């Protein structure tokens, strides 16, 4: 069942040239986690704030469970939307304890019901021992969990998370996001969350929506997005593709590193770009090769090599972490991918 329906949402700030949010349409299924991902300033946070009711759309429609929240004639204020929001900096009320923060959204309920819900939430985020602390007495991870509990306590129809892990340290981030995903799935909450971190999006999202310049470039499952990026930008942003020029010939594309035998319908004989990720490319040392090894980055489980083809084109390739090849050697580069590659014109 569709929880959220967004149609042609647009929001333009006076000061910018293009709309911050430009004709966005998306649907969210019940219990689904959707990740909005894109570089900073791409409009993902504005989209989130439009859905929450903290911004007015210039045009477009937002419906939640069949009820119109925003349209050209209607605007339901945030307090009457039943949408929870976890803020980037958590925005915990500094004058209230953990307990009071979580109870803040429950003020219309009976005291006994409030007590029950708050202790349930405290248990859920494992903060029972710290209920009487004030926000400034908490660590970053604890604040994050309180913010989540506070947003979940009123049982929102939809939960929004705005870069929820960006204020945490790198090692804590992985741990907390696993906890959060577990909690959200156990409560079967519909969630939209915003991140600029592709790895986080791939991990957290049932589906991903990739944003750039206020437009939604592609929406789909992590696998769809990774395997068949709809645009050059998506291929570049998710999985860091390099783009190798190629010419359509019979039976495939002729590139600098050899013939790519793959038939994709293309327009005429204009040159194309083949998206190559580091795992699609390999090389061996060869004095008569077509490239030079420019740099090696040790990534722990793997070595990432940067290669410069004789044309100046840069490609990346990964090898096992034990394979250490000196920088500056010549190499022969070739494509090893056993799956179809994306070709952009």
């Amino acid at each position, binding site marked *: 069942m569709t929880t959220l329906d967004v149609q042609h949402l647009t929001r333009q700030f006076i000061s910018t040239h293009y709309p911050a949010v430009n004709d966005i349409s998306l649907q969210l299924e019940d219990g689904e986690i959707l990740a909005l991902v894109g570089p900073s300033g791409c409009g993902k946070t504005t989209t989130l704030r439009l859905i*929450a*009711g903290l911004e*007015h759309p210039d045009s477009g429609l937002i419906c939640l469970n069949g009820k119109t929240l925003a349209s050209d004639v209607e605007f339901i204020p945030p*307090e009457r939307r039943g*949408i929870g*929001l976890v*803020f980037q900096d958590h925005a915990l*009320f500094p*004058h209230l304890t953990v307990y009071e923060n979580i109870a803040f959204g429950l003020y219309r309920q009976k005291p006994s019901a409030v007590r029950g819900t708050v202790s349930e939430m405290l248990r859920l985020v494992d903060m029972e021992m710290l209920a009487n602390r004030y926000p400034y007495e908490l660590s970053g991870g604890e604040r994050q969990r309180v913010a989540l509990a506070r947003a979940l306590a009123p049982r929102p129809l939809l939960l929004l998370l705005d870069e929820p892990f960006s204020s945490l340290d790198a090692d804590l981030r992985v741990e907390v996001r696993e906890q959060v995903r577990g909690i959200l799935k156990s409560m079967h909450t519909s969630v939209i969350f915003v991140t600029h971190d592709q790895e986080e999006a791939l991990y957290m999202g049932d589906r991903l929506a990739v944003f750039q310049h206020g437009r939604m470039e592609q929406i789909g499952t992590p696998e769809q997005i990774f395997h068949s990026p709809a645009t050059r930008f998506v291929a570049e942003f998710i999985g860091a593709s390099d783009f190798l020029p190629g010419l359509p010939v019979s039976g495939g594309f002729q590139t600098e590193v050899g013939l790519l035998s793959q038939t994709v319908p293309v327009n005429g004989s204009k040159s194309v770009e083949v998206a190559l990720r580091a795992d699609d490319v390999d090389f061996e040392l060869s004095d008569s090769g077509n490239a030079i090894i420019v740099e090696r980055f040790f990534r722990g489980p793997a070595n990432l090599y940067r290669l410069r083809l004789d044309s100046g084109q840069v490609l990346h390739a990964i090898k096992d972490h034990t394979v250490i090849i000196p920088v500056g050697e010549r190499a022969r580069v070739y494509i090893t991918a056993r799956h179809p590659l994306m070709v952009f014109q």
Partner: protein
Amino acid sequence: MQLTKSSRLTLPRRSLTRTNPRLIFAAGTVAAFVAIPLIYIFVRAAEADLAAWERLLQARLWLLMGNTLTLVLAVTAGALLTGTGMAWLTERTDLPGRKVFRWMLALPLAIPPYIGAIVHLTLLRPRGGLIPLALEALFGRPVPLPAPVGFWGATFVLTLFTFPYVYLLAGAAFRSLHANLEEASRTLGRTPWQTFWGVTLPAMQPGLMAGTLLVALDILAEYGTVALLRYETFSSAIFIQLSGRYDRSAASILSGVLVCIAVFFLWLELRFRGRARFTQMESSWRPAPLTLLGYWRLPALLTVLLVVSASLLVPLAALLTWSIQALQDSQTLTGAFRTGSQGFGNYVWNSLWTATLAAAIAVLLSLPIAIYSVRHAGRSSLIISRLCQVGYAIPGVVIALSLVMLINRGLPFLYATSFVIVIAYVLRHMPQAVRSSESAFHQLSPAIEDAARTLGRTPLQTFFQVTLRLILPGLLAGGALVFLTSLKELPATLLLRPAGFDTLAVRAWIWATDGYYLQAAPAALLLVLAAILPLSFLLRREKVFR
């Protein structure tokens, strides 16, 4: 340029996109209320006939301008030197008793300069001053001493009681300055002395300039001290025109010129204040190492003691002694406890209720301004916020003149009521409330308010349950500041008060100008003590004063 700057401000701080028209209306009304007296002065100055302009231009205007500007220059230089020097000694060196001196160097703000002038005049007057008399008795002949009158007297007294403005801002700048900055300069081959002049002082410059310009605005507005010490400036000349000769046309012209000068200083101050924000602390801040004074400890200590004595200890001790002497006199004693409009209780009550009411109104009026200018930052909200700063540039005498003329014309039912005094206080001290409220809102992340909205609160509920709770300390600070300065206000109170309406400031002043210095002491002492309370509340907001 201006457009891109303000539009960049629009993006991050706004919480809800559409500004409530009622908020704009409220903010605009307050701004208009504050700006009307200023505009009216210019209108009246422009309306004045050419003959009046010519008369003034021929004789008085240039003299007054020279007098006023040289005094401003001398006092600001003195305050800058004293304030920065004292701040360096208490913040950056191992001066003994730094913690106590920090307080003693800030507290002169509780003493109105005219009270300080009364004390120093009583002590040092060439004929009949207590110190010359004592010296004459001691040596059997008159000993020539510099008299605290005229230009140098006014410079001396005003420097002593205004340098804490610079001292407080310079102290804060010394504390917030990143130690890394000075260390970087040292590693790049500069000596400590070169570092101080080349790095530390330039980095503090915006804060120092802002403090200095506040002193300059205060001097432009000062009436009591210059009148008592017989040095004529714009403010005292306008006062005489208003109270004695009653020439409103001439007074309007002088006021127009004075306000022009003041607006220029205010414009400079706002520019420097904007830049001072960039020197704020970062998370990696740590205090700079203290300079060890070594052999200089004793001279440094004596210098600080001298400043503290002249600006705080001697005035307090003198007022206390004279109060005790005055109360031993039976006539004064009965006067002190007399009830009704002539009793001490009445003066205290009048001082307190006018200042409290002014503080409450100013803080209340500052709220729409602060919400509009901080939460909906843009060009129009900036203009409105700046309009509310003009109170700084309208000296008390000018406010009085403007109100007298406005009330005669439009609101005659307010004429000669004590409420007019409250209006004058609000107009004059509004900027302090606006600044405090604005900085309170700046410190409150809009996300906190957004969070309350997504948790089911209406805008009004959000304001009362979340916003107000969190900005209350800032609002109280603004209120305390308005209360403090209203308590000390003299010229507008003198000119606007209904007959028989006396405050502590008015009483102390009238007795002192009539030559009853002893009788003035209890009122002055009470005034200072009442002012110390809000001042210490304000100082305690900074960690080092706890």
